[in-house]
């Protein structure tokens, strides 16, 4: 089965990306990415640019409305993802527990990927 791990990081983590803490922030993520890639389970994974770069498209009264910003105004923002191929949810839960910042506000959502043909 394929699963997507979505990382929602709180604002104070996102801010680390460009602050004095940036080297530590990126080092933690590089280390995580390196080890999860070495597990051989990863199909794809990436960090996302921060929410100021997001563009949202919706239709209102039959008209396309393009807006600046993400679709959800949550305290956390979607910051990255990994797609894994495994036989059950258990190894994904294992990796989720090792995500940088997960012990200080980052939330990991795990979703099985539906195959649509």
């Amino acid at each position, binding site marked *: 089965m394929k699963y997507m791990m979505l990382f929602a990081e709180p604002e104070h983590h996102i801010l680390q990306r460009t602050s004095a803490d940036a080297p530590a922030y990126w080092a933690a993520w590089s280390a995580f990415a390196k080890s999860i890639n070495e597990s051989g389970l990863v199909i794809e994974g990436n960090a996302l640019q921060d929410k100021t770069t997001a563009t949202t498209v919706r239709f209102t009264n039959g008209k396309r409305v393009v807006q600046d910003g993400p679709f959800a105004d949550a305290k956390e923002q979607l910051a990255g993802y990994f797609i894994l191929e*495994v*036989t059950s*949810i*258990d190894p994904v839960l294992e990796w989720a527990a090792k995500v940088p910042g997960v012990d200080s506000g980052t939330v990991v959502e795990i979703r099985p990927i*539906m195959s*649509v043909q």
Partner: protein
Amino acid sequence: MTDTVQTVEQVARNSYGRLVAFLAVRSRDLAAAEDALGDAFLAALDQWPRDGVPQKPEAWLLTAARRRMIDASRRSATADAAFPALEFAALDAQREADAVRDFPDERLGLLFCCAHPAIDEAARTPLMLQTVLGLDATRIAGAFLVAPAAMSQRLVRAKTKIRDAGVPFDIPSARELPERVEAVMEAIYAAYGTAWDDAFGVDAKRRGLAEEAIWLARVLTETMPENAEAHGLLALMLFCESRRAARRSSSGAFVPLDQQDVSLWSAPMIAEAERALRTASALTAPGRFQIEAAIQSVHAQRLFGAPVRWDAVAMFYGSLVAIAPTVGAYVGMAAALGEARGPDIGLTVLNGLNDADITDYQPYWAVRGHLLAHAGRAPEAHIAYNRAIHLSDEVAVRSFLLARAASVS
């Protein structure tokens, strides 16, 4: 005809959990396994009266259920959903059906699957009771004080999650066992409690449930020999089960524990319970089930001619309320203190409980009536007994309480 229906019922009772677990572990789809097995039982009710009961009813049901699952997967729209079922179909169905006597028992794996952290916590125990132990959603809803429709919905959602999110059916690694074993033990004990309520084994679905529960606890102690509570749970259920024959008189009347004829108790079962309790205490990790078993052990000493040491019972209840402060534990403590140190002490404990917890709790009112009667407060005792009678749905218990109330003057 009636015989055949009874045979189907008997096979259903004895094999439901084993068959569901076997099918679900292989198809990784619990809901589909249950549906297919339900269809297989319907087909059996239709065909067996006409063609006779097959030599190996379980094998017949297994084969029928597998065919249904394969058919269902062929009709299913997405390749993903079909994959596990098709893989499962590739197994040599006939070979396994022939070897049905030895087909592996996967019930414990299914119990741990239901206790997986990815499953909604409120659905875990109900799901175990339904799938492994075959209790219906209405009865489970009653036990969990939830509307049947809401409970059904919760169960369906949990089964869908197991399938779609790939929740595994394995016994988890040693590291994950402790966090899940508690829910598993709760379910086993709840199943035993359901069987216990049915003193005469009148309800076909519940007949055999007590043995199932004890069997599961035994497998659990073998899987996790280092878990003291698993041994404690086994001991507790064995102590209770040892008294089954003594709980009702020959005319069907309720016999309270302290008046039971000990010659009707099962001495071998009590001996096994004592061994399990010793194994548990040697592991020096006390817990709720061990304390409850210890209380039963004090009562069991009557088998050897010893009077009940109510001070010891009261002390164990004290430890129990310290770690699991349930209303039931407090009421038990009140009853024991009432015997050991007089009714007023017991009544003080009862008076300390919350109104909301005791309004509909029958044992509270029965114990209160008993203590008030002993304290010589007859009018109040009558009120309490009446309330207990009103809250009992079992005829034998009601008659017992009526007789008790009548003897207070």
